[in-house]
């Protein structure tokens, strides 16, 4: 009886996510079509330089991109293409956008994955410690440091790290070496500075969230009950308080992943020359290569959608009040 109610909920969430996905694609389509920049402009510039006839070029480009057809036909074509995995053609790199994505996504993935791991692990530990030792100098120090962590602009942090550790001390290379095999120690070393850059902001945030979630729960009555049983303090904190703090924490961490990480990763890749999706989007901007920029935006957004959906679903399993409602 209860199990089916739960899967009902999951099905509802999936349908809801599909609706949101549709909304995302539609808004992106509207943005691109409403924009003044048309793909024809780039060709126009080229042709004008070579002395061709702009009107003819415009017509040809529009025919090729289907821009001469009525808007709803364009919309259907757009949706249809996306479903078939056709993300368009990147004219700056002369390959299908999907190819481009396939070869570059792994770099973004390893950066985001390692940074999140680093930030979550350290952040939660420090947050718990800070909450338990509230009002001590250590707590004040960590709180102050976390303010600094969330305030420091992460692109500046990246540059400063390069300045100090690569330029002045020569410990790391200034640019990411793509010839390194992914699972090597050298690769890990090359990722140290980028991970610190992307992870610091997240880390500081997690310290604050964990600390506040722990503090909220430390005040609750069941903590006194646990102590009255004679349990050692580390069990009280680790088993009783932390399990309760974990619930809102998981939600916040996952949602944070969506909003902050992708923007930060974009910038970090550019600074360190990591050839991930952010980097190729950046290159595409200057080549006026529309489809790539749009594709990267869509991929980032769909990642967020997926993360949100999984958080929703996992929360129903983590919180017994929902599981056995």
């Amino acid at each position, binding site marked *: 009886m209860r199990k089916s109610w739960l899967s009902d909920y999951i099905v509802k969430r999936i349908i809801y996510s599909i609706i949101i996905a549709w909304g995302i694609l539609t808004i992106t389509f509207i943005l691109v079509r409403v924009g003044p920049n048309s793909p024809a402009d780039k060709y126009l510039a080229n042709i004008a330089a070579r002395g061709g006839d702009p009107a003819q070029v415009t017509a040809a480009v529009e025919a090729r991109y289907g821009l001469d057809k009525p808007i709803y036909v364009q919309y259907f074509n757009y949706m249809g293409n996306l479903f078939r995995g056709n993300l368009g053609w990147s004219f700056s790199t002369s390959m299908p956008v999907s190819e481009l994505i396939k070869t570059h996504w792994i770099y973004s993935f390893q950066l985001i994955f390692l940074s999140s791991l680093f930030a979550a692990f350290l952040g939660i530990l420090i947050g718990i410690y800070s909450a338990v030792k509230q*009002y001590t100098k250590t707590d004040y120090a960590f709180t102050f440091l976390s303010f600094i962590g969330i305030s420091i602009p992460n692109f500046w942090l990246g540059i400063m790290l390069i300045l100090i550790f690569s330029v002045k001390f020569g410990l790391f290379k200034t640019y990411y070496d793509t010839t390194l095999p992914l699972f090597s120690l050298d690769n890990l070393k090359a990722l140290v500075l980028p991970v610190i850059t992307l992870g610091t902001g997240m880390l500081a945030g997690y310290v604050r969230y964990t600390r506040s979630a722990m503090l909220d729960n430390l005040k*609750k*009555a*069941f903590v*006194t*009950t*646990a*102590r*009255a*049983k*004679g*349990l*050692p303090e580390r069990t009280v904190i680790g*088993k*009783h308080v932390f*399990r*309760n703090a974990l*619930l809102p924490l998981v939600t916040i961490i996952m949602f944070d992943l969506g909003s902050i990480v992708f923007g930060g990763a974009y910038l970090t890749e550019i600074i360190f020359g990591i050839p991930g999706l952010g980097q190729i989007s950046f290159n595409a901007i200057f080549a006026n290569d529309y489809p790539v920029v749009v594709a990267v935006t869509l991929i980032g957004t769909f990642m967020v959608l997926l993360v949100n959906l999984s958080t929703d679903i996992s929360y129903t399993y983590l*919180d*017994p*009040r929902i599981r*056995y409602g």
Partner: protein
Amino acid sequence: MSNVILKVNNLKTYFFTRRGVVKAVDGVEFELKHGECLCLVGESGCGKTVTALSILRLFDSPPGKIVDGQISYDSLNLTECSSKQMRQIRGKDIAMVFQEAQSALNPVLTIGDQITEQMKLHLPLDSNHTRERAMTLLSEMGIPSAERVMGYYPHQLSGGMKQRVLIAMSLSCNPQILIADEPTTAVDVTIKAQILDIFRELKAKRQMSTIFITHDLAVVSEIGDRAVVMYGGKDVETAPVSEIIGKPKHPYTRGLIDCLPDSSKSAGRLTSIPGTTPNPVDMPTGCTFHPRCPKAMKICSQKEPPETAISKEHKVSCHLYT
């Protein structure tokens, strides 16, 4: 005399806050005898809960501190023993049941987990035995289908069941003393009666020595053997319950009894004690009750009343009797 298992002697627990020093417990004294049910009675804010928390040192320690007094239990002074010794006593020799069962239970752990956890800590039993013992306790408390309940989470139980689970939890390691902090306050009348039944049975069957905290004199009269009336952090009158109700000496105790609605009287105004409980940071001088006392004399605002023995079992702190 050898009957006494716990003695609280001149206990003073103060809280040092930014707005001043709160003298929550300011010189409380009483004894608990084996097998008896001692009630701590008083309005909210009089210090009864803090007294109980002080016995097990469960109050928050940065603001709170036991500044004076001894609590003698089993040749130990609980105000001064080490944290390790304290932890061995908590849950095993002295157990405590709290007021609001909903918030006193951990919402993300199962009932079974929460009951067996202290048994695993204090008793040399394996997990099968702790589980069986837990289920037996639950049944004893009147909880049906104990095995299923072991796997439940707190929010799946009703208020009365939760309170019983709390009581079962506290009994799991067979403590000598049970401290109950207003277990009937947050529940409705039918559950209240059931819970009082449980405490009566505990006394009868297990000879459980209980410290029962309440503000409700009706409850005191039902299950208490002796009562300590508290006001403003001090104990103002101590006596067997029959004398507290029948021959109250302290004006505050009399006021409390007068407050009880009496269905035999015809409709009229309900009596109340005038004024409000004192500001804990700014207590009145002399006797803390004097601003509200109908029998206040000049000396009451100047000097604290000493403790006078009316009889062997009956003590009062009031200038009327010095």
